[in-house]
């Protein structure tokens, strides 16, 4: 039972490792090896055995020939065995003599075997009769002795006829050549089948090694995929983190300016309203006491808090920069790695997925700005495009952020719309980020995507340049246009994936 289970398990293991084809090759290889081995064992000596059988059969047939009375040597031997008298012995010798004479008469018709001597022995090995009676053979050592049993009746002792004969050399040579040829062929068969079995064994070991390598590569690919995903997510976080830090720095600067101006502004305002100096002093004192009563020391604690907050902002900036730098390094490394996961390479992604991911990332900013971010319903019908996912999401996030920073003159909240247009004839898909803000100043529009061009002050104007570069790196193009009445739209033109195009065509 254990053996059967072991065989089944081994078979199943082989099937899992090599597949059915491999199992088939294994079985054929093993069968051919066993066939070759068995043939070598059983067939190599067949010509020699056949030769022996031929000699034995010819001699046995010859001694069975009866005399004119219908009796053969075996009959006379039986007669002698039953009553070993002189007369029976004479008949036995006569029968042996007849065989000898028959042999001489048929010498010319007996081309295979030349019989030189016949000797009849009783069960004890004693010679009963022989022909010729006396004769020495010059080449006795080259004779072959064949023993032919004569009596098979139950209860009768076993006599045997010993025949010294010589197989005609030509026939012997034929059998010998046949045997040599057989052995050569069988050895070749054995060698070939053995070699194929060795090859198969080597193949099994190689496949096992290959499987381990594939497993390692799969693990590595999974790690790269994970790293890529982490890079993507961390990049998003760093991106948001950086934006929020800039906002926070602006707020802290504002508080710092407020603290620095607050006392002077208060005194100036008190003088302007006609308060004298002592009153102003009392008011200042009262205000200080009130701050003190509430546990606040603006000149000291708030300033210190502002400094601490500024320090935190700097730390955040450092961390953000560090994370960004790390992400870029990892990104660059993944870009150089050929086996990097699918996240590093272009893939077929539906525009709606890109819109949704960007909207999710920007949702807090949009809510804080009391803006509205919508995804047009037709975006769902847009065909997939071939893009690097995180690059395109970053581009969309930058464009949304850019729209949020625009402010309407009447203070109404900004409305941002994400939509997609497909042009199946030329395989284009256009991703549109539109807003209903004041639009882009006409003098800025031609240089909009140049680095450093911004209406928001110095050290700004990098976002759109990055977007343009990213889009171009993915094989697309971007342009900005003002709407006829108000607002503007950024149009990113990408191309449908080839597979998608083929299906459509």
């Amino acid at each position, binding site marked *: 039972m254990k053996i059967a289970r072991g065989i089944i398990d081994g078979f199943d293991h082989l099937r899992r490792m090599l597949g059915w*084809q491999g199992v*088939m*090759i294994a079985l*054929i290889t093993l*069968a*051919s090896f066993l*066939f070759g081995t068995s043939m070598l064992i059983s067939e190599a000596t067949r010509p020699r055995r056949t030769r022996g059988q031929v000699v034995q059969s010819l001699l046995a047939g010859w001694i*069975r*020939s*009866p*005399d*004119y*009375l*219908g*009796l*053969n040597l*075996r*009959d006379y031997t*039986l007669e002698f065995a039953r009553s070993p008298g002189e007369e029976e012995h*004479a*008949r036995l*010798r*006569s029968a042996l*003599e*007849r065989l000898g*004479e028959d042999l001489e*008469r048929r010498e010319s018709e007996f081309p295979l075997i030349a019989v030189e001597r016949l000797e009849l022995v009783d069960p004890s090995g004693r010679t009963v009769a022989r022909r010729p009676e006396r004769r020495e053979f010059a080449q006795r050592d080259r004779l072959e002795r064949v023993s032919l049993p004569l*009596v*098979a*009746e139950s209860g009768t002792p076993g006599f045997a006829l010993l025949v010294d004969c010589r197989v005609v050399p030509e026939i012997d040579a034929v059998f010998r050549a046949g045997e040599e040829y057989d052995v050569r062929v069988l050895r070749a068969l054995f060698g070939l089948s053995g070699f194929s079995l060795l090859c198969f064994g080597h193949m099994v070991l190689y496949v096992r090694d290959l499987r381990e390598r594939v497993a390692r590569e799969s693990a590595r690919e999974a790690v790269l995929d994970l790293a890529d995903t982490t890079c993507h997510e961390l990049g998003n976080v760093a991106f948001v983190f950086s934006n929020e830090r800039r906002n926070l720095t602006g707020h802290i600067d504002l508080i710092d300016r407020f603290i620095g101006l607050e006392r002077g502004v208060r005194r100036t305002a008190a003088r302007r309203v006609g308060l004298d100096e002592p009153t102003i002093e009392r008011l200042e004192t009262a205000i200080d006491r009130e701050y003190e009563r509430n546990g606040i020391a603006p000149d000291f604690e708030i300033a210190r808090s502002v400094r601490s907050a500024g320090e935190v902002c700097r730390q955040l900036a450092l961390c953000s920069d560090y994370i960004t730098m790390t992400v870029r390094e990892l990104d660059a490394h993944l870009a150089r790695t050929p086996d990097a996961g699918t996240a590093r390479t272009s893939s077929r992604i539906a525009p709606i997925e890109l819109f949704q991911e960007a909207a999710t990332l920007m949702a807090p900013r949009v809510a804080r700005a009391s803006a509205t971010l919508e995804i047009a319903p037709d975006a769902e019908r847009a065909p997939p495009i071939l893009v690097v996912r995180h690059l395109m999401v970053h581009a969309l996030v930058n464009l949304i952020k850019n729209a949020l920073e625009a402010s309407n003159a009447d203070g109404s909240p900004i409305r941002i719309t994400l939509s997609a247009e497909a042009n199946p004839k030329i395989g284009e898909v256009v991703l549109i980020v539109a807003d209903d803000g004041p639009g882009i100043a006409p003098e800025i529009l031609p240089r909009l995507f140049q680095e450093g061009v911004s209406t928001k002050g110095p050290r700004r104007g990098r976002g759109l340049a990055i977007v343009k570069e990213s889009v171009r790196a993915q094989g697309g193009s971007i342009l900005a246009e003002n709407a006829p009445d108000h607002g503007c739209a950024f149009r990113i033109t990408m191309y449908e994936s080839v597979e998608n195009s083929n299906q459509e065509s």
Partner: protein
Amino acid sequence: MSWERRVASVLLAGMGVALGSALMFMLIHDRLSAWSRVDPRSTPAADVAVFFIERSGWKRFLDGLAVATSPERSAGSIVLASDDVVIAETSPNRRRVRFSWENARGRAETIESVRRLLSSPTPPIAIIGSSNTLLTNALAETTAVASPRRAPMLLVPWATSMPLLERHRGGVVRFCANNQTVADDLVAGLATHRPLPQRVVIVVDPRDPYSLDLADCFERAVAAAAPSARVERRGDLLARPSSGRSDLGASAPSIEEQEFAREVRITAATTPTWLFLPIQGEPIRRLFAALNGAAPPRSERRGLIVVCGDGIGPAAFESFVNALTFPIWAPAGLSVTDRRGDLGTSGDSQVLAEIAAAVLAVVDDLDPIDHEAFRERLSSLKISASDPRSMGRPIAFTSAGERARESSEDLIVLEPGSSEVSYLARDGLGIWGEPRPIPGRAAIGDRRTP
């Protein structure tokens, strides 16, 4: 899986299947061939074992069977044949009979072979054979010990020894004449056309029961036909084993044989002598050589007539044409005048065809086929000479199992100096007619030694 891998897998699987199939085909081809062949030995049929020493005997039996199953004879047809087995179908009831050759040589092998057949689940209903009196005796003795319900009937083609039928009473039928009939016919033929002898010499082979029996028969026939003749019986001549060769293709005669021949020939010059040689094989050839070597002058050759049994066949007779210096008389072993053309050149065909026709005729009437019914029906079988199943003479047996007297055989004669063998046949009154040339020498063929 890509399409390339699919195609490669399909090709690999196809090649594997083809290779495996080829391997299996090579390995089991022989077995398949054996399975696909119809084995005549396993086909249901009534078994008949045929015992002849040589394959040539079996071939002659097949010739006889072919004659019996020819459309003109309408005894049946051959439906299946292999090397050693033939299945024939009887007509009109289409019952099958399987004739199998038993390659047994010598007495011991014959007995073993019969015992094996008798111990088989379905022993044969009949045994045909053998070529020799000793071996036929062995067949009769071995079948005699079987129970009547399983004992096969022994159909004897050539063994003429008188006591043969006694060895298995009721279980043997003889298709040839017995020794006494042969002896009576020969002596009657001689007495009709030649002067009665003053001296009769009978040479006996003491080792050969056929010789001993035929010698007794000759003695009785001579005593009846020529009571005044002096009968001498010589059993001492053939005791010594032969050696050397003679011109007649046999061993050279011994000195005793040569002296005997010289004495017989000299005496015959003055005393009409019939020399009976109821012997066979080597001894008869040696004595022929001795008699030929002791030939007196032509003027003194008239007094000797050599008479043989059926130990020397008609074909051998033809080989002696122009070679002997004395006349020989012998039984023809068949009816020369009654034979039809389809029996071919072999004289054996007549007896063997008669045996085949008789077996087919009996089996055709049996339902079911059992041993006792077969024996009973064969013993009472009567096929007239006009029946197409006969071979020119009636097939019927006496109650003892001997061939009925009307199935007479002819005699053949070879005179010295004659260039052809003559035959004598009885006329309507049973009188032996004058020797006449055989119509077509090929009409008489070879016979086995009895």
